[in-house]
């Protein structure tokens, strides 16, 4: 395909979305999960697959489990029958999917490519061996001074959650209410892992992972799944699909910034979302919008308190008001700014690299008004017109902060 003439800075639209359900599919190979989502996105966009001229594949742990560390992109995408164009493998903890999306947007925005495929796929479920999944995921954090010594993400989350409970007066009931909402939303999502609602009492009484986090307050990551989207320039987008293609309004992308050891609180833990705060400042500025304009939000809720904290980090409410803001119903489907309308990580499941792409799939599905029983509407009864995604992943480095944090804003 020829490179467009004139300005190389172009608007970028999402023209196709596809999913393989998230769950436990031990009998399926990585490529089988991926091909299902890839072809679903191609059919959704109603394009000739020969239009695709670049692909970004997000996958973290195929090397860990199978020894296939390299050549993952051409192998996985090639087995969907596609070939001949550049295929690029990216990884970055739970943000791998956002990295792939970010790169695809840059590729199209540059004018060098016109139709980019983004795939996030992961296989993490090993029957009868939950420790091996934790060991795999731990390789997304710094090994020598962290995970090899016994650090687990859920324990890190627990420690930072306890600080926030002290600071903001949050309670375990707040977290149970969040988990209850996520599961209820997931019940309306055919691609979600969770198929069983739980009451607040059941969630509080469930097995403790690390105080105060019980099992349903933590996302399940020993999960398999895939998600794919197709992005292209606005000119090409106008000629494919149904013509209703949400566009990328702004992206903010940051990594953890070093904090001096000489301050009082040098290492606030994973649940500080300092990086998300910086990423959203960039995204809002680039989109020319603010938190008050958002009509739908997808957040990276590894644990229930992370969703609660994201409310103030994204500016949906003031710091310290997260619990009352949530209890007002604002973030439920039907509220002013629904958060995690498809169940989020808690309800959808978290096959690490697939999650960031699945967030884009849900936002686009909602903005098109195609979300079925979980469709959310604005006060004007329209599908959401401006939506945001918060995604984060990997940990380590001298800062000990999040490796990659993404803020993506889409507009109708």
């Amino acid at each position: 395909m020829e490179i467009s003439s004139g300005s190389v800075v172009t608007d970028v639209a999402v023209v196709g979305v596809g999913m393989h359900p998230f769950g436990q599919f031990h009998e399926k190979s990585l490529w089988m999960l991926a091909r299902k989502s890839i072809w679903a996105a191609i059919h959704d966009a109603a394009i000739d697959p020969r239009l695709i001229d670049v692909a970004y594949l997000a996958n973290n742990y195929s090397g860990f489990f199978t020894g296939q560390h390299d050549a993952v992109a051409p192998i996985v995408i090639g087995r969907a029958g596609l070939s001949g164009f550049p295929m690029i493998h990216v990884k970055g903890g739970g943000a791998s999917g956002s990295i792939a999306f970010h790169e695809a947007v840059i590729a199209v925005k540059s004018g060098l490519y016109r139709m980019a495929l983004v795939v996030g796929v992961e296989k993490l479920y090993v029957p009868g061996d939950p420790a091996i999944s934790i060991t795999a995921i731990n390789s997304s954090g710094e090994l020598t001074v962290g995970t090899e010594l016994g650090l687990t993400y859920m324990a890190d989350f627990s420690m930072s959650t306890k600080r926030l409970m002290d600071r903001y007066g949050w309670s375990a009931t707040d977290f149970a209410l969040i988990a209850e909402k996520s599961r209820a939303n997931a019940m309306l999502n055919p691609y979600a892992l969770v198929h069983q609602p739980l009451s607040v009492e059941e969630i509080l009484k469930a097995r403790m992972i690390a105080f105060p986090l019980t099992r349903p307050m933590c996302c399940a990551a020993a999960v398999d799944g895939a998600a794919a989207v197709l992005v292209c320039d606005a000119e090409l987008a106008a000629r494919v699909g149904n013509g209703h293609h949400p566009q990328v309004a702004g992206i903010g992308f940051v990594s953890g910034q070093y904090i001096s050891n000489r301050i009082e609180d040098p290492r606030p833990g994973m649940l500080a979302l300092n990086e998300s705060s910086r990423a959203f400042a960039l995204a809002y500025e680039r989109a020319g919008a603010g938190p008050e304009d958002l009509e739908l939000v997808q957040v990276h809720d590894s644990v229930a308190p992370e969703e609660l904290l994201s409310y103030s980090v994204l500016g949906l409410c003031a710091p310290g008001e997260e619990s009352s803001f949530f209890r007002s119903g604002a973030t439920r489907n039907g509220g002013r700014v629904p958060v995690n309308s498809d169940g989020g990580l808690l309800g959808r499941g978290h096959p690490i690299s697939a999650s960031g792409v699945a967030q884009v799939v849900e936002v686009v599905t909602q903005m098109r008004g195609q979300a079925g029983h979980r469709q959310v509407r604005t006060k004007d009864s329209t599908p959401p017109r401006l939506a945001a995604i918060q995604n984060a992943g990997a940990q380590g480095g001298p800062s000990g902060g999040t490796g990659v944090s993404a803020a993506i804003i889409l507009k109708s």
Partner: protein
Amino acid sequence: MRTILLEETNSVPGRDDEYNDWYSNQHLADLLAIPGFEAAQRFVLNPEKRFTDSPDHPYRYVALYEFEGSPSLLFERLGAATFGANPIFSSPAMDQRLSVNAFTPITDKLTRPQTLRARPVGEGLFEERDAEDYPPVLLGSKCVQCEEVLFPALIDCPACLGFETMRPHRLEGRGALVSCVVSERGPSGFTVPYIQAYVRLVDGPVVFTTIGVDPNDAPSLEAGEELVMSIEAIRRLNDTEIVGWKFRPAAS
């Protein structure tokens, strides 16, 4: 149950080669063909003795068989196989004054304890030293330009972006508890539950550690509590012990 069959024999004088050929190349295999026989091995008497005045052993050859089943089942099967003086179970080169006995195990088969290999969690992270007078230290670095102290050690300073301004710096294995939690799940090789924690070292940096305290006693750990470090095996993967640091309350 397992039975050991011990067969002690001699060859007919002058027919040693013929006897060994028959026993090693035919007889062992014939016995292994009998159901229940799982292992067979021959031995020859060595002339060296532990005590020079002990009497000479009456047999030059020993064969040891492992049989899965009781001694009575063993002899029943052996009897059935040799019934009718099947010629393959004897040799004219064998002295007929042999000794055949069955033994029943009275202990488990003990093996020398496996030696574990030890591997540090990472290279150049800590120095064990003499625990009495020189307690273990963490190997960090300090910036000559802005005095930032870091662990693990770096060469360039992330605080002031100084190029090659960091110098090796030993960090004391003492600090204050920032936060801790009992984890009910862990990676391969950890025994759950166990206590995970962050500790603020007296030299500044915050490090992750496990706490060497019974998880049931975790509620007694308080933020700010003084902790000391020891270097020890923190987990075991197959035959490898991974050595790293662990903290405990200073008072205990």
